[in-house]
């Protein structure tokens, strides 16, 4: 219901501004922090007026962390690369495995399909630590501990259920008649899957990919236990900022900005596909 009262419009504007401030504040504050030194950050009362500095970013990129106790070597850029590689590879493998599986669960109702699908989802319920302890032992025996392959495998626990359940819903929303029509037109099962089901579920696959990327990126526990310094993602690497001489707030903030940048960029890019949505105008009469 639209209304035209100017008072109401003003009130609505104020309300929206407040909500925006509330949600945006942490991010804006962190961005501001990343351009300050520890001293300006910690002064009381805090102020938004300061002389911006790039030293936090320089420190991160060069890997030399300046603290009062001296210079510390950190491998932040390496961590960032690890995060990027681990997340991308996990999502890619997750999509390759998960999308056809999601299609099978959506279309081919076989005996026990519901149970299997639910079991896969239930992996998300289990506390990760419960899985981790036995897993660590097995991984060490198998030589998978501290390898990219091992981490990517474990990451499937996060990525696969997510992709499976989101994409399955999108496949179910495609009217079966559209696929039947393509089959009857003379195309086999696989080309129907490729030419009809995949493009129509595209937005769902993009959404699932993005979401699972974010989840993989933000994972902490698996990497903490299963990866050592050279394979660590940023989430674990950030621990290095907690130094003997205190917490390097400025560098932490810069680290956060750098580590959310890829997901942020990805989200902005994928938004186009997410918003596009399923246009089923052809089906609804």
């Amino acid at each position, binding site marked *: *219901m*639209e*209304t*035209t009262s100017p008072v109401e419009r003003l009130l609505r504007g104020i309300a929206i501004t407040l909500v925006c401030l509330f949600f945006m504040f942490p991010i804006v504050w962190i961005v501001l922090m990343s351009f300050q030194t520890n001293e300006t950050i910690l002064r009381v009362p805090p102020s938004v007026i300061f002389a911006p500095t790039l030293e936090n970013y320089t420190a991160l990129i060069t890997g030399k962390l300046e603290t009062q106790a001296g210079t510390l070597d950190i491998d932040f850029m390496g961590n960032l690369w690890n995060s990027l590689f681990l997340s991308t590879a996990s999502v890619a493998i997750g999509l390759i495995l998960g999308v056809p599986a999601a299609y099978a669960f959506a279309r081919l109702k076989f005996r026990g399909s519901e149970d299997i699908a639910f079991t896969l989802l239930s992996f998300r319920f289990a506390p990760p630590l419960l899985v981790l302890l036995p897993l660590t032992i097995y991984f060490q025996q198998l030589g998978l501990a501290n390898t990219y392959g091992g981490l990517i495998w474990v990451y499937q626990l996060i990525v696969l259920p997510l992709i499976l359940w989101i994409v399955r819903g999108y496949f179910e929303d495609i009217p079966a008649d559209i696929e039947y029509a393509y089959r009857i037109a003379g195309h086999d099962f696989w080309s129907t899957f490729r030419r009809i089901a995949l493009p129509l579920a595209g937005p769902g696959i993009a959404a699932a990919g993005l979401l699972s990327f974010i989840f993989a990126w933000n994972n902490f526990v698996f990497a903490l236990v299963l990866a050592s310094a050279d394979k660590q993602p940023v989430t674990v690497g950030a621990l290095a900022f907690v130094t003997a001489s205190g917490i390097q707030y400025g560098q932490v903030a810069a680290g956060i900005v750098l580590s959310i940048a890829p997901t942020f960029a990805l989200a902005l890019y994928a938004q186009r596909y997410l918003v596009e949505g399923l246009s089923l105008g052809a089906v609804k009469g």
Partner: protein
Amino acid sequence: MTIQLSLKSVDKFYGPVGKGVHAVKDITMAVPKGDIIALLGSSGCGKTSTLRMIAGFEAVSRGTIELAGKQVQTLPPVRRNVAMAFEGYSLYPTVSVRDNIAFALKASRLAEAEVARRVGHVADMLEITDILDRFPFSISGGQQQRASLARALVRDADLHLLDEPMGQLEPQLRTLLRGRIKHYIKERGLTAILVTHDQTEANALADRIAVMEGGVLQQYGSPAEIKERPANLFTGTFVGEPPMNVFAATASVSGGTLTFDLTGGLDLRYAESAFDPRVRKMVLDRKQVMIGVRPYAVHRAEQGAAARVVANQWLGDQSHIAASFAGKTIVLVEHDRAHLTEGEPIKVEIKPQDLHIFDPTSGLALSHGNELAA
């Protein structure tokens, strides 16, 4: 005659006024109290937008809506005292069909016995008495639609809005319910607006039909008016089953004979005296006209214009015959079974009083039979 609802120069834009999609264009119409009005048009013609503006679910971009004597276009739906049956049913899923129907009555603190009586009555009429204690998810689409209709009709509102109220029903049931719903509305003196794309429904139920196309109100009149005096080519060809035959023609007169030369090398000849002088003058002044004739008014005759049968479809109670005629197809309807085969030559006759003449550019009606169009 009191006016219950009046729309004055109502516009609807989706997006900014003047720039967005202009869904409803400058509609002005008045609905007398106690009338049933049908908004008739194909999908996307603006009929549902109009209905939603009356109900208050869409903002009115321009113009005013007056209901029961007061302006309502800025009021929220709840304060308009309007009852609506939704095309998508929108039943409350957590309560039984009975409670769905009784919902508004209970809210208005009506005595329990009275609520039960009214619900029983409307349920009887719509043949849903046996499912009153079921829940919406457990009944069929047709039953949900009737429950939704009952929920709207049971109320004492200033206006009842029915959006495609019978689309999901089986044809046999639809015919039966049309009569009953009309009787129910008339008996209780309700004012109702029905949105439909089905002209049979509009003709059967409505006192007046508002034909819409492209957001524009094409014609607003009684079913008979719309059939006998279509305001323009759109209405003429949209309303009527089968649709009106239309041909482009050049009119000329010589030796007491008025000739319509059809663009397929055929002509229709009439004695000049068969036409009212004003109609004759109008036709001859314009020369280029569109002529329309209803399929029921095309007759086979000994003397007439030549045509060749392309299809003859017998529907039990009537025959629909299509014949190639003047480079196009002419359709004629006969009430008996016609024994014609494809390719058979026939002669067709169109009486002057059955001709509808339209302006070829604007499409506006110029004359109907021997009367000039208003």
